[in-house]
């Protein structure tokens, strides 16, 4: 548990938002110290520069493009039995409808999985993901939406133990027969790392990315916004994650 917090804490400080906050706080601190005016100027200007650049839409797009351009949407007409939809964030708030219980990325992954399941005869969806600290597992929440959209319960395999992508890969490996093809659905920015992890357990997925964050830049006159800062944050998170996977292997 402490390791988990520590990992999150370190991750916070090396990602855009954490960097912006840290240099802002340092700058303010130096501003109130005598004779540290130069340092104050440096840190505050750095903080503002980072805030501006990471929330400027074309720049966020530039960060996310290399990740998302590696693969495009699933567009084959193969007969494949299993579609593995990776888990993502959700809430268990009963005052919200199911369409609002899944976070944006999990929702898009489920919808992509359901569309593919409807297109491919006799296919089954695999939902994985644990409950975090809620009273329902992410995989069960995803399956509820799939059922509501018309997928039969017998066409789904649900597992509720997986804490990360590696464990999700291991679960699917236990289901497939040797060398069997399957489709992997996850967010476009996450799919490269997911593929590395699936390959590390000996699987060879056919990729079906969704939840793209890139956009077609039509004008460079854009106001900075929070959404772009979040996209920068997601992109940096993935770069660090990919580096981590490569270091470990």
């Amino acid at each position, binding site marked *: 548990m402490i390791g988990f917090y520590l990992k999150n804490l370190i991750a916070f400080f090396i990602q855009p*938002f954490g960097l912006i*906050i840290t240099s*802002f706080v340092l*700058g*303010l601190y130096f*501003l*109130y110290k005598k004779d540290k*005016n130069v340092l*104050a*100027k440096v840190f*505050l*200007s750095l903080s*503002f520069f980072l*805030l*501006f650049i990471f*929330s400027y839409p074309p720049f966020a797009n530039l960060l996310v493009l290399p990740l998302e351009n590696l693969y*495009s*949407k*699933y567009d084959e007409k193969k007969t494949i039995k299993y579609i593995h939809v990776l888990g993502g964030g959700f*809430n*268990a*708030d009963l*005052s*919200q*409808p*199911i*369409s*609002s219980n899944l976070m*944006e990325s999990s*929702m*898009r*992954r489920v*919808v*992509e999985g*359901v*569309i593919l399941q*409807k297109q491919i005869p006799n296919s089954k969806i695999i939902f994985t993901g644990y409950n975090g*600290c809620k009273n329902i597992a992410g995989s069960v929440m995803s399956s509820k*939406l799939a059922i*509501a*959209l*018309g997928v039969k319960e017998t066409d789904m395999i649900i597992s509720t133990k997986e804490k990360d992508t590696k464990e999700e890969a291991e679960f699917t490996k236990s289901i497939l027969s040797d060398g069997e093809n399957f489709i992997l659905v996850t967010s*476009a920015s996450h799919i490269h790392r997911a593929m590395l992890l699936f390959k590390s357990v000996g699987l060879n997925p056919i990729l*079906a*990315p*969704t*939840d*793209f964050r*890139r*956009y*077609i830049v039509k004008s460079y006159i854009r*106001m*900075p*916004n*929070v*959404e772009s*800062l*979040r996209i920068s*944050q997601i992109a940096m998170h993935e770069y660090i994650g990919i580096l981590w996977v490569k270091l470990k292997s």
Partner: protein
Amino acid sequence: MDGFFLKKVISFFIEPYGLIFLFFVFGIYLLLKNKNYYAKLSLLVAFFLYLLFAYPIFSNFLVTNLENQYPKYNYLHNIKYIHILGAGHTDDPKQPLSSKLSSDGIKRIIEGILIYKQIPNSKIILTSYYKYKMLNYPVNVKLAIALGVDKDDIIIGVKQQDTGDEADFTKSIVGNEEFVLVTSALHMPRAMMLFKSRGLNPIPAPTDFKKTLYYDYFYIFDLDSIKQSSRAVHEYMGILWTKMRG
């Protein structure tokens, strides 16, 4: 066009993110001019605003005030028309249908489809705005069809630029009959005002809630919270604007 851009610029600077930016840039300008007293003041205001809007308890307070006005749909009514309000989309051909609608757009359409599937003989009204003449169905219609909605059950409007236009379109179809209105929970209070003011009788079906049940007190600076605050303030201003115009 200029008026539109001006409106964007002005609303940028009175919304949380823009306000923080404004005080931040002003503070740095003063600092570089060596007007330290005013620089400190401006930077502290920026920092305070940052703390406030990024604090989950505060952003949640702003959001729940709007979102709790209408509870989720109870799925019991037997109503013919379901109007799903439009949102943004991309035309990027490399993305699948599940990725083309904006975050609020996809949640709204899924909620509408779930209601449609429970009511026999119901119809979905989909409104949005497309600048160019289309050769094919709009993205939201394609997604509904891919998820099993019969294309004869969809009524399509593609020239509605704002919620007012959308209300006018639906009025021409349902008149003062009851119908289900699907939109984001934050947007629902304003949408209800606009629809009711035109004599329509919507039953609200909110989705895309931003409120959170569990927040981590550990998170003092939460990026999602700034986004929530921005959305909420945007809606408060929209409601004010709607009321001012009567």
